[in-house]
């Protein structure tokens, strides 16, 4: 082969490799805007026919970045060209991302929305995605942890009222469970992930747990009681499986769906899956997070998901328009009828919503007594520390709740020093 041919071949190879390295996706035509939208699950992609009829020049590129890795991916891409324009955010992520300047404040946009439309959204939901006074995300959906219980089994056993206190839970569980046949009194999530923290914080809160500047006061009477509760339910009362320490969402809900748990503290969005699993609503029911005493107030600390605009989006106006499209009554209904709960009153006014979700009124009631999860930038680390504490209580029959609470508080406080 002559030198010239060799040089051309080498140059062509270099060009090919460099071309591959720098190749990008096809860009939108100049008169078309493209919005990249990240959802945590497939369910977040709604029907876009109407959107494209009204906005043929705004193309939507939807991508599922699973909840488990969503925050990590947002942090890694924020500020780069790979960041999305819009992302669905779990509530604790709002403070983390807002604190870093990755989110656009939406107050000015929301101020332009007609008052009656704003009022349609549950007032508390407007308060949740705020950080240091500014609104950083648009309310979209929520789900509260609830005590799912087998109402049909309760009735058969002559237990007349739904479980309201932890004493009720223990009595009913001991009456109805059959551990020898792997039917447990109660299932909760216990594995090391944030879902476990989000499942325990409402219990802590319902026991009178306090938050000072949004920091949970674990080293307190309520904190010790809430930690001790997990240990005692597992090792003393034996109404939770000793395997709870390894239960993720799948096992906690799976046991209830499979009829292997009398009660379960899981997200309300699991209710459609329970029905799908063959147990009609009525045979199972939802109750509020149990309290220590019947006179204690009913409270909850739900998870909410909201839409946020990343601060480096080149199309914030279009992004806000799309968020409003997703969050309109029809969008909320489409999303919520089979998954998490709507946050618009107009959806709860729809008979077909109640038909799809007979527990909708219960959830609306629950929203009214809800407070947000801690909105602090150190949430992820704080959640990890709480998980360590819960692992100790669930995994060690001899764990000392007071000592664990003190150590947990020390580590949490260190984060905020």
């Amino acid at each position, binding site marked *: 082969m002559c030198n010239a041919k060799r040089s051309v071949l*080498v140059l062509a190879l270099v060009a090919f490799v460099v071309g591959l390295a720098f190749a990008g996706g096809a860009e939108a035509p100049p008169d078309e805007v493209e919005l990249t939208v990240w959802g945590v699950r497939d369910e977040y992609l709604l029907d876009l026919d109407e959107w494209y009829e009204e906005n043929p020049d705004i193309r939507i590129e939807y991508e599922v970045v699973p909840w488990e890795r969503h925050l990590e991916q947002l942090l890694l891409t924020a500020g780069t060209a790979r960041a999305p324009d819009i992302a669905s955010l779990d509530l604790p992520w709002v403070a983390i991302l807002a604190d*870093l300047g990755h989110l656009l404040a939406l107050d000015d946009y929301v101020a332009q929305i007609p008052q009656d439309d704003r009022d349609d959204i549950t007032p508390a939901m407007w308060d949740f995605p705020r950080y240091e006074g500014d609104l950083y995300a648009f309310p979209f959906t929520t789900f509260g942890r609830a005590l799912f219980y087998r109402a049909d089994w309760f009735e058969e056993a002559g237990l007349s009222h739904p479980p309201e206190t932890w004493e009720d839970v223990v009595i009913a569980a001991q009456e109805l469970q059959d551990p020898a046949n792997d039917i447990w009194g109660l299932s909760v999530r216990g594995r090391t992930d944030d879902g476990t923290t989000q499942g325990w914080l409402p219990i802590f809160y319902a026991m009178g747990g306090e938050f000072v500047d949004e920091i949970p006061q674990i080293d307190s009477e309520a904190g010790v009681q809430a930690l001790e509760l997990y240990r005692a339910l597992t090792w003393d009362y034996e109404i939770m499986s000793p395997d709870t320490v390894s239960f993720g969402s799948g*096992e906690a809900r799976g046991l209830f769906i499979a009829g292997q748990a009398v009660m379960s503290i899981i997200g309300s969005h699991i209710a459609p899956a329970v029905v799908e699993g063959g147990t009609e609503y009525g045979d199972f029911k939802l109750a509020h997070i149990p309290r220590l005493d019947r006179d204690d107030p009913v409270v909850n600390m739900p998870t909410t998901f909201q839409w946020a605009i990343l601060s480096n989006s080149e199309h914030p106006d279009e992004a806000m328009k799309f968020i409003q499209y997703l969050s309109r009554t029809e969008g909320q209904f489409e999303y919520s009828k089979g998954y998490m709960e709507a946050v618009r009153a107009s959806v709860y006014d729809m008979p077909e919503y109640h038909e799809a979700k007979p527990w909708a009124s219960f959830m609306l009631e629950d929203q009214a007594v809800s407070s947000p999860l801690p909105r602090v930038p150190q949430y992820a680390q704080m959640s990890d520390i709480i998980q360590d504490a819960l692992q100790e209580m669930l995994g060690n029959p001899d764990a000392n709740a007071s000592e664990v609470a003190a150590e947990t508080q020390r580590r949490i406080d260190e984060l905020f020093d």
Partner: protein
Amino acid sequence: MTARGKELRFAYGLISPTFVVIMLLLGFPLVYAFVQSFQHVTVYDPAGEFIGLGNYREAFSDPHFIDSITRSFVFVASSLVGAVIIGLTIAVLLNRTIPARRALRALVLLPFIVSEVSVGVIWQWMLAPQLGIINWILRYLSIPTVRWLSEPNWAMFSIIFANTWRLTPFAVLILLSGLQSIDRNYYEAAYIDGGSHWQVFRLVTLPLIKPMMLVTVVYLSFASFNQFATIFSLTGGGPGRGTEVMALNMYRTAFQHFNWGYGSSLAVILFLINVLLSVTYSKVFERKD
């Protein structure tokens, strides 16, 4: 320039683009992580501040990290021994003339093409205490069930088992290629000299597949030390921190606590252990020659 020189220049010309791309894709992150390991860099302070050996000092004074090193060695050694012994046994069997040999060879490779996350999810469902099929079978046979994922020792066994299950096919693949390359005349000569099956295997087969054994051991060791996805999806590092190996500790530090400088120092330590081990393996295998 001589013809040989021209030939070499052309060869280097051909590989240089790939070399440059590899250096950019692999070398740059490595150097970057190394530099970052001497800085205090977090998501809140991405600019970073030089702190010398601060991250390394923190690592070696953190009992969780020290424990994770011990767990990593237990995890790697057990996976390695399991995968090599089982892999070699299967390779020897598949090297014989048995019915459906081709189909079996293809079947044996299946676990290796399953993604690491899927391996974790598959075994999580099989080993799930109440809902998993393995405990269901034990119950059916009236054998006491096992707390596969919630008791620390069993959880460690479970992650080793899942990892071994995934990596064994690689051992089979490489060792089988070694077995197939052995000249049959060696075996004939050995048997004529009165060697037993075991003696022939130990004195003829094993020495001749030593290079493949080295490749297998080095790869399996790397793959197991860096294993994160299967463990993360199978146990999440729990119960407690009972299955938190170095790679998982590094992931948590870097991507859950967003402490990138400290996470980088853990990555560098992990990298150095891998390098040291591969050098050790080479020496051990050379020495026996």
